């Protein structure tokens, strides 16, 4: 299954501002992909997400789903294996729908499918051929070209 499309299904839900995926503590994917702002947020919150689950595990292992409600929005943080998915929403009205859609996404996360989320960068373009220079008349030496 195309994990990229499943990711799109999450971010297409009403009220969803963005989502990102962490693997072993590092940011592996951000949607919308071109959002530098979201990538920065993902990176800044990364250690806190890790510490949150570490504290939860210390109390009682097995908490893989966290809902954080704030004054101006919500964050749904879900964990499966080494992957942690963070979805930011405008409020908690969309959380049930987000949970359903992310169930499918989390079930399909494998090293191969995650690798396909970030295609390798395109090779750099070949250097352009220099423009054809105007042909010069051959050099002559004693009436003969050389």
């Amino acid at each position: 299954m195309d994990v990229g499309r499943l990711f799109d299904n999450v971010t297409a839900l009403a009220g969803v501002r963005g989502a990102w995926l962490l693997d072993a503590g590092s940011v592996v994917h951000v949607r919308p992909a071109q959002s530098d702002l979201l990538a920065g947020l993902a990176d800044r919150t990364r250690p806190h997400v890790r510490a949150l689950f570490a504290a939860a595990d210390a109390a009682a292992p097995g908490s893989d789903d966290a809902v954080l409600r704030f004054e101006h929005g919500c964050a749904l943080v879900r964990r499966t294996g080494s992957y942690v998915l963070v979805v930011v929403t405008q409020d908690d009205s969309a959380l049930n729908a987000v949970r359903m859609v992310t169930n499918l996404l989390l079930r399909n996360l494998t090293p191969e499918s995650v690798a396909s989320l970030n295609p390798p960068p395109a090779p750099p373009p070949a250097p352009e051929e220099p423009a054809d220079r105007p042909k010069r008349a051959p050099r002559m030496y004693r009436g003969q070209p050389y």
Partner: protein
Amino acid sequence: MTDRELHDCLDGLADVQAWARCDALGEVIRRGGPGDARFAGAAPVLLHQATEIGRAMGLGTLRDLELHGEVHVMCLPSDDGALLVEAGSRGALTPVTRLLAMAA
């Protein structure tokens, strides 16, 4: 609603396994329910990390934090620490949310 009334209401909710009011260091001040509040000691760290996540995202102050897994936990920051409620199901936390909204 007074604290005592709130605690009585929490005791009366179905499927609530434990509740605890903790200070800022996670020490339990008051507790109720048939089970142990396992997350009480972790409450300060959980709330701190959640607060930092909200701050980094620019989402304002933390209202509450829910953790779901083998145990379903709701953790609410308060002026003097936190209130923690542990339930046996996700749905059991819904009346807790309503109750706390009334108490606020």
